[in-house]
């Protein structure tokens, strides 16, 4: 029971390196990337009323989004896109 679990964890920890190798081997193909504002609309309203970007400043959003990345278990890339949108719209 422990061995497969440990193997899975190690495989996940090694994912960034494997992904970097893949990028080097195959040329990137353009794909429609979902935007930060779309991800904001998809994720944030699932559990609570949406918080407006102007409610916090850019630094506060950075802290808030790290909290939400952990709490909602969001993919890191999606959390970064949402943060980028919130910081751009925060205005200060």
């Amino acid at each position, binding site marked *: 029971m422990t061995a497969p679990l440990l193997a899975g964890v190690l495989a996940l*920890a090694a994912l960034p390196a494997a992904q970097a190798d893949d990028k080097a081997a195959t040329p990137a193909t353009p*794909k429609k990337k979902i935007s930060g504002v*779309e991800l904001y609309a998809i994720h944030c*309203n*699932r559990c609570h009323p949406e*918080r407006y970007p102007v409610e916090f400043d850019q*630094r506060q959003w950075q802290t*808030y989004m790290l909290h939400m990345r*952990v709490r909602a*278990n969001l993919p890191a890339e999606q959390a970064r896109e949402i943060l980028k949108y919130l910081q751009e719209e925060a205005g200060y």
Partner: protein
Amino acid sequence: MKIRSLILGAAAGGCAAGMLVPATGSAAVSEEAFNALSDMVSKQGQALEELKKTHEQDQLVIQQLQQQVGQTSQLATNAEQKAEAAAQSQTVYQAPNPAQTTTHNFQVIGDAEVQFGKSTGQNPTFVLADFAPIFLFRANDNILFEAGFDITLNNNANADGTRAPGSSTTVSLSFAQLDYCLNDYLTLCAGDILLPLGTYSERAAGWLNKIGDDPLVRDWLPGSGIGARLQGALPVGQSGQMVTYAVYVANGPSSGNPTNGFANAGDLDLGGNVGDTPNWHANPSGGGRLAWFIPWKVHYDLELGVSGQTGEWSDNRTHLWSACVLDAALHLGPYFEAKGEYINTWFGTDDLGNLDPHGLWVQTSYKLAGLKRDWPVINNLELVARYDNSDDAQGTYTDRYTVGYVYYFSNTLLFEGDYEFLKSHGPNALPPQMWMLQLSYGF
């Protein structure tokens, strides 16, 4: 320039006069004319003397001015050198940027509730005043410390449950965990961690819940535990779809029996094993959650999850406590939501054998703004309905039907009202009806 012109003019005048002298000399010069000319030359000589004096004074003034310019230049050079020195010292001892100070990485979020309600057989009363701050401190882009508290006011009571004078404030730690994002796919959470048994503890408790109380069946699960968790999410495609995962170890439930070794049914203590002295039992529990989140367009999504935990709970290590939770959440547009959990737990006991408390809850809600009418007050309302049941496996079974509303004064200030009908029987049966009003503020 003017002085020099005057001098040249006087000299030219003198020369002209000199040229005139021979001409006149050749003729007969009257004494009167000679005297006049002599007087004129004398005056010109005086004028030249005055001009020389003025020129000398001007030269003196020019020298003084040149000295002052030199001093000013020296002062400017000194100031420039001082500025350079100051800039170098700032490189070594950089002044703090207000936007990067530690206090700016510190943030308080959370919620507060005030509740007024009545249940069958009781008088209507303010039943809850709760302040639940969450302190966040972000050390850098990957490390966060977060701690949540529940501060409530309670009537005093004697050990046997009878009333006692006065009231007391209860401060309880809901969770306190250090989050370290190891990479994009793994995050380590350690401390008093919220347990991912379903999603309720992490994403629906407090003001996030659209009904003023918790589903009954959540009483059979611990909300948090001392331990460590690895979690992460794998995005699937580019549509926002993802698979999320979490595995953890935690101290797990323990026996509250004062006599070590006994593990009767009533001794199960879901949140009591916090690891301080004495350590109730050595082996921690293990658990995890696996979920799939599928959005097909913005505000339209489905999440399905399965989670569980198992481990010893008795001090003599003879009995296990285990739980399995199935959870689902569905959004059909920005106005409709349905979610729920099925929870089954099992634990062995010394006195009653194996028990399996279980139950479920299903909750739906609809925001009347979805009717797209120009109704300013109605548009701020959300209707909520919930069905939940609970079987404690010791003879008490409860069905509960709840209807209610949420009025949104803003996105953070909510006024909720709920009415509950209960069908409950057994030794721990609940009152048949209850209503409550709650004002919630999330910050």
